[in-house]
């Protein structure tokens, strides 16, 4: 199912294409009296005008002029009008103008140089990036008032064009417009989440202008904001066909040609230095089996490299060469993938870099609109029957393990023939299995001595591995205790196995003493049999328009045996529960299997990945019932 069909049509009725009279002065324009009561239904700041005008000059140059005006009604919203503008070698910010208008639309003052600050904006994980930010602030103390910003961004070499979102915050929008101007001879490539919404076309001199407009968009609630905006408002993507970036020329109009451009950046970068070639030859020699050879070459890369983010060259697109990575032992995702492809090539295995949309909801990727929607690079090794995927930035994962952030995602595989878009496979719930076995002895005081053995696989294992593999003994203990969240618990001993890179399964054995696990009165003690997996979160009761995304399918099985003192007998037990829903299945039960011995079994299977909004009610009910079951208690009463 494509994105477009999921967009709720209901919002379309709010959109009226209008031909707004030009020349209205700001005095009239930002007067609060002119505001439609529709927008004032809830107390909130209001976006008065959000206009983006994008002009394509040629294959290299473009210009974006943005007008953003917001009326602020209370002091708590003042800082929400702060403007942060990122720029780099290819995008420069010019002419930031701004002004404060009072409630009548009279100008209070204009922006001055002191209102703009300039910062380095390198991400925390990055060693080098060419990104800086300008932060613009304007405040007033008589409410309501309006802040208007007008700024110009110049593109000198591009690949990414702006994405327009009619309503980009929860605030209601009075008027929003996106205009794109292209040379008369060109036609604009665009995608709108609402199929039926076509741009208005006009001509100005030798230019063609595409226009989208919206007005009177009501405030979005907090729960609506938590959903993907693409299901709540108009989103327009535009993308170049032929483009120039740095010294390169490419064509984005198809995945195939986009891939061709990326391939050209990697040409000649697969040369391995002699010692690397010798190492690969040795592996080839002793490992005739191709599958085993791939694993060995992958481990070779894992053992010699680490991930260091350095965004340089062709706007961060050009990978460092295989020699560079081999000699230094580090690189970013593109460089490490390129090195892996080079190693595999020397090993006689054909492999390709694959640009991927990592960690973003899979449903947001627009497959029928070739454009840069990627943020990561992995390696694709075509094999029979299943293609193998290698994530090269993680030295600790098994060969071929994709990981929750890469699975089910759109990836552009870059071959000699250009780019080819495919979806990476998804794991099944049993691939991500989590089993907890426990033997728990309760004493008269309510103290529990628990022996727990947990086995985790797939993405569940990967999460445990990420927390524990590199952690110090102190941190490991701390994490294990924090993860259990049992007040009064002491970890007496623990054992870990299968944390190493080529293991698909990790086992954690824990010997715990939990003070006051069972609490009670003179006659009774109570305890929650759901000691390990317990859910407490019930999704809110709201109307949902976008799918509920799960990171991956999974299956939890808990089987815990409780022994209690002979001075007690069982008075009450949680009801047996068995649920089935579009989300998955759940069951739980407590049985007396012997004198003073109970067996608690819990089984939760989540089969959904992106659950359609129509099922939201069932999803909510399902987890409400799970929460209810998990918090149920066993009641023991004195004989």
């Amino acid at each position, binding site marked *: 199912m494509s994105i477009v069909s999921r967009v709720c049509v209901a919002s379309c009725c709010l959109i009226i294409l209008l031909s707004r009279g030009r020349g209205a002065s700001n005095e009239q324009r930002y007067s609060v009296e002119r505001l439609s009561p529709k927008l004032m239904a809830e107390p909130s700041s209001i976006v008065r005008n959000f206009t983006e005008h994008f002009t394509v000059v040629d294959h290299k140059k473009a210009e974006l002029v943005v007008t953003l005006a917001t009326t602020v009604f209370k002091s708590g919203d003042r800082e929400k009008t702060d403007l942060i503008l990122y720029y780099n070698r290819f995008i420069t910010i010019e002419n930031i103008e701004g002004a404060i208008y009072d409630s009548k639309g009279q100008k209070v003052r204009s922006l001055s140089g*002191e209102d703009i600050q300039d910062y380095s904006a390198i991400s925390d994980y990055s060693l080098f990036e060419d990104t800086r930010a300008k932060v613009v*602030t304007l405040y007033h103390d008589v409410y309501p008032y309006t802040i208007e910003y007008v700024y110009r961004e110049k593109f000198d070499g591009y690949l990414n064009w702006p994405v327009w979102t009619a309503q980009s915050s929860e605030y209601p929008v009075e008027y929003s417009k996106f205009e794109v101007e292209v040379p008369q001879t060109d036609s604009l490539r665009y995608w709108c989440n609402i199929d039926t919404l076509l741009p208005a076309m006009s001509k100005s001199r030798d230019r063609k202008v595409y226009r989208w407009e919206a007005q009177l968009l009501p405030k979005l609630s907090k729960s609506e904001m938590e959903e993907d905006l693409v299901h709540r408002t108009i989103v327009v993507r535009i993308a170049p066909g032929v483009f120039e970036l740095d010294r390169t020329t490419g064509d984005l109009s198809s995945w195939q040609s986009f891939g061709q451009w990326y391939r050209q950046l990697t040409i000649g970068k697969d040369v391995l230095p002699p010692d690397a070639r010798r190492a690969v030859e040795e592996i080839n020699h002793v490992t005739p089996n191709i599958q085993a050879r791939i694993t060995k070459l992958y481990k070779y890369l894992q053992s010699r490299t680490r991930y260091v983010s350095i965004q340089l060259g062709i706007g961060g697109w050009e990978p460092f060469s295989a020699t560079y990575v081999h000699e230094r*032992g580090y690189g970013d995702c593109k460089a490490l993938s390129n090195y892996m492809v080079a190693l595999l090539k020397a090993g006689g295995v054909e492999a390709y870099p694959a640009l991927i949309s990592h960690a973003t909801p899979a449903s947001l990727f627009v497959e029928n609109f070739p454009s840069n929607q990627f943020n990561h690079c992995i390696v694709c090794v075509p094999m029979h029957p299943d293609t193998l995927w290698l994530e090269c930035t993680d030295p600790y994962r098994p060969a071929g393990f994709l990981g929750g952030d890469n699975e089910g995602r759109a990836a552009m595989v870059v071959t000699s023939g250009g780019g080819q878009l495919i979806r990476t496979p998804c794991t099944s719930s049993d691939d991500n299995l989590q089993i907890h076995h426990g033997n728990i002895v309760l004493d008269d005081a309510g103290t529990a001595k628990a022996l727990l053995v947990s086995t985790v696989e797939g993405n569940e294992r990967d999460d445990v591995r990420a927390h524990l593999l590199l952690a110090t003994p102190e941190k490991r203990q701390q994490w294990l205790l924090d993860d259990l969240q049992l007040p009064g618990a002491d970890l007496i001993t623990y054992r870990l196995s299968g944390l190493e890179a080529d293991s698909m399964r990790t086992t954690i054995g824990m010997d715990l003493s939990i003070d006051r696990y069972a*609490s009670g009165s*003179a006659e009774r003690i109570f305890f929650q049999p759901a000691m390990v997996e317990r859910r407490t979160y019930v999704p809110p009761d709201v109307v949902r328009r976008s799918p509920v995304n799960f990171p991956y399918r999974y299956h939890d099985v808990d089987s815990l045996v409780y022994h209690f003192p002979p001075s007690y007998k069982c008075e*009450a037990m949680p009801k047996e529960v068995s649920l089935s829903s579009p989300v998955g299945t759940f069951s739980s039960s407590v049985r007396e299997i012997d004198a003073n011995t109970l067996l608690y079994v819990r089984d939760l299977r989540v089969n959904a990945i992106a659950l359609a909004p129509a099922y939201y009610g069932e999803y909510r009910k399902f987890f409400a019932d799970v929460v209810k079951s998990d918090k149920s208690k066993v009641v023991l009463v004195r004989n």
Partner: protein
Amino acid sequence: MSSFRLLPIIILLLFFSILIPLHVFCQAPAAEWGNVPMSDLTMSSFPNDTNATAVVLFDIGETHMNDELDLEFTRFTRIKILKDAGFSWGTQSAILYTKDNYQQISDIEGATYTLGGDGKILKNEIDDKAIFEEKLDDYRTKFKFTLPKLSAGCVIEYKFKIRSTSWNFIEDWTFQHNEPVLWSEYTVRIPPQIHYDGVTRGYEKFFVNEVTDAPQSFHGDASAYVHANPVRCNQYHWVIKDAPALRSEPYVTSIQDYASKAELQLSAYIDRQSGVPVKVLKDWESVVNELLISPRFGRRVEVSGDVRRTADAAMNHVVPQLDKVKSIYDYVRRTIVWNGTNGLTVYQTPDEVLKTKKGSIADITFLLLSMLNAADIPCYPVVLSTRDNGQIQLVYPIVNQFNYVIAGVTLNGAEIYLDATDPHRPYDVLPFKVIGTQGLIVRQGPVQWATMATKKKYVQSTTAAVSLSAEGKIEGTVDGLADGYAAVNSRDDLDSKSRNEIAEKIFSTKGSGLTIDSTLIEGEESSESPLKFHSRVVGEDYAQSSAGLLYVNPLVVNRWLRTPFATPVRKYPVDMGYGSVISTSIVLTLPKGYQLRELPRDQMITFPNNALSYTQSITPEGNTIHLTARFEVNESEFSPRLYSRVRDFYSQMISAQNIQLVLEQASKKPK
């Protein structure tokens, strides 16, 4: 001066003090570039600290003056990386004050050593491409470099040189890091015409801690300045051996307060041109006096026409002095946005702040002072170091220790301290970041310090009236009152969270099985009065029913579901900043025909000196159950020695709160 009770031992070294020659058996490591002993490479674990992911083998720093009389600092560090988790040591950075070339970095070298399969040592050096510059702002640049070919077991070493044209930019030295350090050494050699005061602090014992004199030859102009050639320079020399790792824990004020350090401050020098002695570092009195005459600081208290008009309008003819203070404070906190900048530097005049309606802490405080002056209210700046910036070293009278300035007001013989950076904080509640810090009062007369004490607590009291159905559904009303820090925290949330979310937070109902349906908040406008909450709550299946019995936890609000102290041991004190009082009163109406089968015991959990206490009691009354509970934190700091008791207190309290009432139908009561 209560907050100084944990201050590490401080040793002040004075110049020209009696020099005691130390006969050190030099066990210094052979710190020769490129000469890595095989034993360092074969070392595979560090038994003294099994949590170590890397060990600093040596970290050697040296500062001296060169022939241009610039400060020249070199650092040479060698690190054993034991585990992959120690790779972060492979990326190093230094922040330099680069405006007008005040500081320059050069001679960056770095190498990674690994053991080859043939038992030979392989060396990989960094190249220029692996050195990056990031311009942080107009003044500072961050230099970063990363070492190649890291692997568990490798040894890295790096060195670099920093030249500073200003004598103020002398490098301090930190002997302890978050991994063990086997040898940390710092030497500072300065000609006698220039004086620095050195202070050491921390808990680790110094292996070498001496001031000696050492000859140095100068050439060019410098030789005229130092007179003799070679000249006997003053030389500081500090070594700490086998320093343990310093690792942070939750609720620690600033882990840097516990690190062993050497700090230097220019105290006096002979002027190069005039030959006149200049005194830089004197005593706190001169620090105060210099601040008072500084055009960027003390002079800012002058009153302009705009300031006077604004102050008059804000006060609106109120007469009592306290009301004047409150009106001015309220005007500033509500009107001016703090831009997050700390420090004593003033960027704008009060008039400009009134126009731009934003500013640094100093901008805001000087506007406040200026307006108070306009109202003829006695006031003064108070400079301090915020909690995360570390404690003030009293023996070290320099202004750089301070990073924050607030206003002090004398009213009826009492002092009030005002920080106007938060629009929601009443005048008598200090922000968490300054609580317990020492403030230096910037005023004529004898030097005065003041502790930024707070009597305010986190105060919350709640009354709930809920009824339970035979099906286990609970619903009713919850009325709460938040005062002190509880009110400030909730008010800060008003702009970003929904009413129900704020109520959920204040009543701790998240995960309890209760949903907040609606919330009305009273007292949003005046932040001096408590904030009042009126919520409707509902919990489907709140109680568990089984065989005609209902099991229910009557503590529907103010229940701790998680312990903040999961780890069994702790090295540094728990510092909560302020105390708390949370009281709860609940009336639970039972379903028709139900009664309590068994009355739970009253709970009283205590702690020495009543530092913590929790009481809980339940009384049946007709078809209702009355529950009262009270949680108090009366001290804000707990030493590591008391940690296990604190942890146990919370665990006992959580257990007591996890109470279950057993309800039965009246007719079915067994004999």
